[in-house]
C-alpha cells in the first residue's frame, strides 16, 4: 500500500472531510453528504442533505430525529462497497453500539480508517469490532489515559446484583445513556440471570423497543414513571443521569443511585456525582485496547480525537509512529461526561 492516504482526509469547520469523495464523516453541522459512524448525538446530527450509514444507524436516526430530519437516507451494509468520486468506501463493525461502524476509505494512494467510537469487549447487542489494516487510522481517545482499564463486565453486574440482595427494600436506579448503554446493560443483566421486569424511564423506551425490533432480545420491561413506588423496591430502574439528579427520582423507594460508565473508574469523579454504586462499564476502548488497536491496524499515521488526545499521541510517538491530535470543535468532552 502507498502511504499517502493522509490526502483522503482534511479538517474543515464542519469536521472531518474527504475531498476525493466529497463527503464529511460525523459532521458538526448540516452538509450535503454525511457518512455517519453511529447514532449518538455527537456523531449523528440532523439536517444532512444525504445521510449514509448502516441500516441500524439509519433506523436509530429516524427514531431520534424523525423522518424529515434528513434530505435522503442511504444505507450501506457492513462490508458493502460504494464508489464515491475517486475513492471507494465501506463500513466495518466498531462494536460500540448497535449499528456502529468504522468508515474505511480506499483509493490508489492507500487506505484510511475513521474509527468513530469503538470498543473491543463482547457486547450482546452489537457486532464485534474488526480491526482493518490501514495507512492512516483516526482513533477516538475517550479513555486515552493509562488510569483507564475497564474490568470485566460480569464483576460489575455482579456487584449490582449483590447490592440488590443486601438492600432488598431499596430500588436500584442506574444512570445510563439512552442509546447503547441502556440496552447493553439490560442484555447483560439477562445474561447474568436477572429475569424480573426492568423499569425504564420514559426517555429510554423508544430506542429499547427499536433494539427489540432489530432483533436484540430485552426481556420484560415496565414504565418506571407509571409504576407504584412500593413495587420498585428491590428492582432495577434505568434512567438518564439527569432524571436521577432531579425530582423524578423522588418516585423511587429509597434509591441506591448507581451509574454505569467508564468514568466510574475514578472514585473522586464518581463521588462528586453522588453515586453510591459505581459500575465501570464502558462502550469505549480502554487505554490498553486503544494502544493495541493502533498497533493492530499497522497504520504509520494516527490521528487522535474525541477525548484525552495528549496521552495517546505521546504514547504513539514513543512507538515511533506519526501521531497528531485533531481538535474537532464540539468534541472536547474531557471529564464532563462520557462522550457518546
Amino acid at each position, binding site marked *: 500500500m502507498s502511504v499517502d492516504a493522509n490526502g483522503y482526509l482534511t479538517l474543515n469547520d464542519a469536521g472531518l472531510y474527504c475531498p476525493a469523495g466529497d463527503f464529511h464523516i460525523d459532521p458538526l453541522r448540516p452538509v450535503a453528504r454525511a457518512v455517519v459512524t453511529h447514532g449518538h448525538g455527537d456523531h449523528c446530527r440532523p439536517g444532512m442533505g444525504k445521510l449514509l450509514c448502516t441500516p441500524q444507524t439509519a433506523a436509530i436516526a429516524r427514531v431520534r430525529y424523525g423522518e424529515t430530519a434528513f434530505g435522503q437516507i442511504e444505507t450501506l451494509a457492513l462490508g458493502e462497497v460504494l464508489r464515491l468520486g475517486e475513492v471507494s468506501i465501506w463500513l466495518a463493525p466498531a462494536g460500540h453500539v448497535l449499528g456502529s461502524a468504522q468508515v474505511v476509505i480506499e483509493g490508489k494512494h492507500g487506505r484510511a480508517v475513521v474509527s468513530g467510537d469503538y470498543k473491543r469487549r463482547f457486547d450482546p447487542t452489537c457486532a464485534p469490532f474488526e480491526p482493518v489494516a490501514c495507512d492512516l487510522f483516526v482513533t477516538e481517545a475517550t479513555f486515552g*489515559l*493509562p*488510569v*483507564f*482499564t475497564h474490568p470485566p463486565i460480569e464483576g460489575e453486574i455482579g456487584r449490582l446484583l449483590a447490592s440488590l440482595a*443486601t438492600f432488598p427494600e431499596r430500588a436500584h436506579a442506574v444512570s445510563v445513556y439512552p442509546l447503547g448503554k441502556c440496552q447493553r446493560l439490560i442484555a447483560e443483566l439477562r445474561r447474568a440471570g436477572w429475569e424480573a421486569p426492568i423499569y425504564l424511564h420514559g426517555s429510554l423506551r423508544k430506542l429499547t423497543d427499536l433494539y427489540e425490533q432489530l432483533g436484540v432480545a430485552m426481556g420484560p420491561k415496565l414504565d418506571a414513571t407509571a409504576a407504584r413506588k412500593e413495587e420498585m423496591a428491590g428492582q432495577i430502574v434505568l434512567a438518564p443521569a439527569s432524571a*436521577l*439528579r*432531579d*425530582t423524578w*427520582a*423522588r418516585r423511587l423507594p*429509597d434509591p441506591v*443511585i448507581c451509574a454505569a460508565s467508564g468514568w466510574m*473508574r*475514578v*472514585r*473522586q469523579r*464518581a*463521588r*462528586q*456525582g*453522588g*453515586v*453510591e*454504586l*459505581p459500575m465501570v462499564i464502558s462502550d469505549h476502548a480502554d487505554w490498553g485496547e486503544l494502544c493495541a488497536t493502533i498497533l493492530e491496524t499497522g497504520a504509520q499515521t494516527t490521528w487522535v480525537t474525541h477525548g*484525552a488526545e*495528549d*496521552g495517546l499521541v*505521546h*504514547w504513539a510517538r*514513543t512507538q515511533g509512529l506519526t501521531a497528531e491530535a485533531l481538535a474537532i470543535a464540539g468534541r472536547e468532552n474531557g*471529564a464532563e461526561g462520557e462522550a457518546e
Partner: protein
Amino acid sequence: MTPFARLLCALVFTASRNAKLRVLRRYFEATPDPDRGWALAALCGKLDLRSVKPAVIRALVEERVDPVLFRLSYDFVGDLAETVALIWPDTGAKGAPLLLSEAVDALRAAGRQEAPALLARMLDRLPADERFALIKLATGGMRVGVSERLAKTALAQMSADVSLEDIEALWHGLEPPYVPLFAWLEGRAGAPSVDLALAFRPMMLAHPIEAALYSAGEQRENTQGEALTLARMAERLSPADFIAEWKWDGIRVQAIATPSGQRLYSRTGEEIGGAFPDLLAAMRWRGAVDGELLVMRDGEPAPFADLQKRLGRKAVSARMLREFPAHIRAYDLLHDGERDLRDLPLAERQARLQDWLARETPVRLDLSPPVPFESWEGLGQIRAGARAAAQEGLMLKRRDAPYVGGRPMGPWFKWKRDPLSADCVLMYAQRGHGKRSSFYSDYTFGAWTLGEDGPRLTPVGKAYSGYTDDELKELDRWIRAHTTDRFGPVRAVEPALVFEVAFDAVQRSSRHKSGIAMRFPRIKRIRWDKPAHEADRLDTLEAMIAQ
C-alpha cells in the same frame, strides 16, 4: 486485602450513617482475626505505618510508568494514591492472595530502607482496588468518612450484651489487632482485662434545656420565647435541686495523671495531648479531671479562635506555647488519686474537687466556680448579662446525680445563651446526600459589601439545617426556579431570598474571603417577605466578632 478493599470502596460511596454501620458490621462479622482488627485500627487512625511517604510512592511509580503519561493522569485524577493505584502496571503476577495482616506485619517490620521495594512487590500482586487500599494503609489517612465512634458503634451492634459505653470504657486499654475484643463481642470470652488507670472514662454529656421543656415538634428556636422557657422551668424544675456553672467556650476535655503518665482526651475519647505539651508537663497532680480546655491570658479565657490555633498540631512551636497558653478550667473530679468518685453525688464531688485543688495546688488548672442563684428568673438575668466571648451559656446539674457516661436525660442540662443572628442572602445551593440527594439542601449565603460597582454579596457561611421537611421542599422549588448558573451539583441563584441565620459566634478567619467565620450557623427563619437589599452588611457581622 480483597475484603478490606471492598470495605473501603463501600464506605467511600455510602452516604448515610445507617448504611455505613451496616457495611462495617458485615465486614467485622465476616472477616477473621487478625485482619478485621487491623482494619479497625486503620479506620480509627490507630495503625502507625509511617514507613512510606507519598514521595516514595511517586518515585516507585515513575520507575514503572512513562512520566508524561503519569503527569497527565495525575492531573486528571487529582489524588496521588488513586492515580498510582490505577496506573500501576498489571504484572499478571498471581501469587496467593495477600492478607491484610501479612501486609501490616511486613510493613511494620520493614525499615525505611526496605519498605519501598517491599511495597512495590506487594503492589505487583494486587488489582487496582486493592492497590488503593494498600497505599492508603501504608501512607495513613483513610478519609472514608468513618469516625472512631462510628466504628465502635458498629462493633456494639455485633453483640446483644456489649454496649457502646462498655466498649468505650475499655477502648483505651486495647491494642490492635483487638483479638480479645472480638472474642468478647462474639460471646466467646469475657471482657478483656486491661490496665485502665490512664484510660478514657466515658464522658457525661448534657441535653439542651429545651429538650426537657418542649416536645419534638415545638423545639425549633424560632417558635420559643425566653419567657415561655422560664415559665416551664419554674413549673417543672426546682432551683434548689441544681448547681449552675458557666459553660466555657473551649473544648471539653478529660485530663488524667497517674504515676505511669499523663493523658488528655477530647469529649469523644481521642487523645489530644500531643498538641498540648505545656498542659501535660503541668499535670504533676494525681487524679482525673473533667474540665474545659481554654487558651488563657492573665486569668481570662481567650476567644475560641485562639484555641483553634492550637488544635490538631503535630509540632508546637515555642512561640505558639507563649502566645496561646493552654489551661484547664475544672468542672468535676472523677478520680482523686486512685479513688473513683464517679458514684458520689455531684455536690459531694464538688466539695472534693475544692479540697483536691487546695491540696494539689495545680498550675494551668483552676476551678470553674458554681454560679450562685435563687430562682430561674434570677439565673436567667445572670445568663443574659454574660456576653463575655468565652461563656457559651450555663450548665445546670442536679446536686444528687452521680457521674455516668453517655447523655442521660434529666441530670444535666445546657442552657445556652441566645444565639446571634443576621439576615443573609442565599447565593448558592448544593444537592444533599442520601435521602436529600434530589433536593438542594446545603446553602451558601452572603452579606452585602460595597464594591466599586455598587453593592455585592460576599459569602459568609453555609448551613445544612434549621428548616423543616416542608420548607426544604419549598426551598428546592424556589432554587430550581431562580437558578442563574450551574456548576456540577451546585446552582447559583438570583440574590433574592433572605435567611435569618442563627450562629453561636463570629470569628476572624483568613481562610474565608469575607474575613470572618460563623460558628454553627443554621437557618432560623426563611424570610420570604424580606427584600434582599434589606439584608445585613458584612460590617454588621464584623462588629459581632468575639473580642
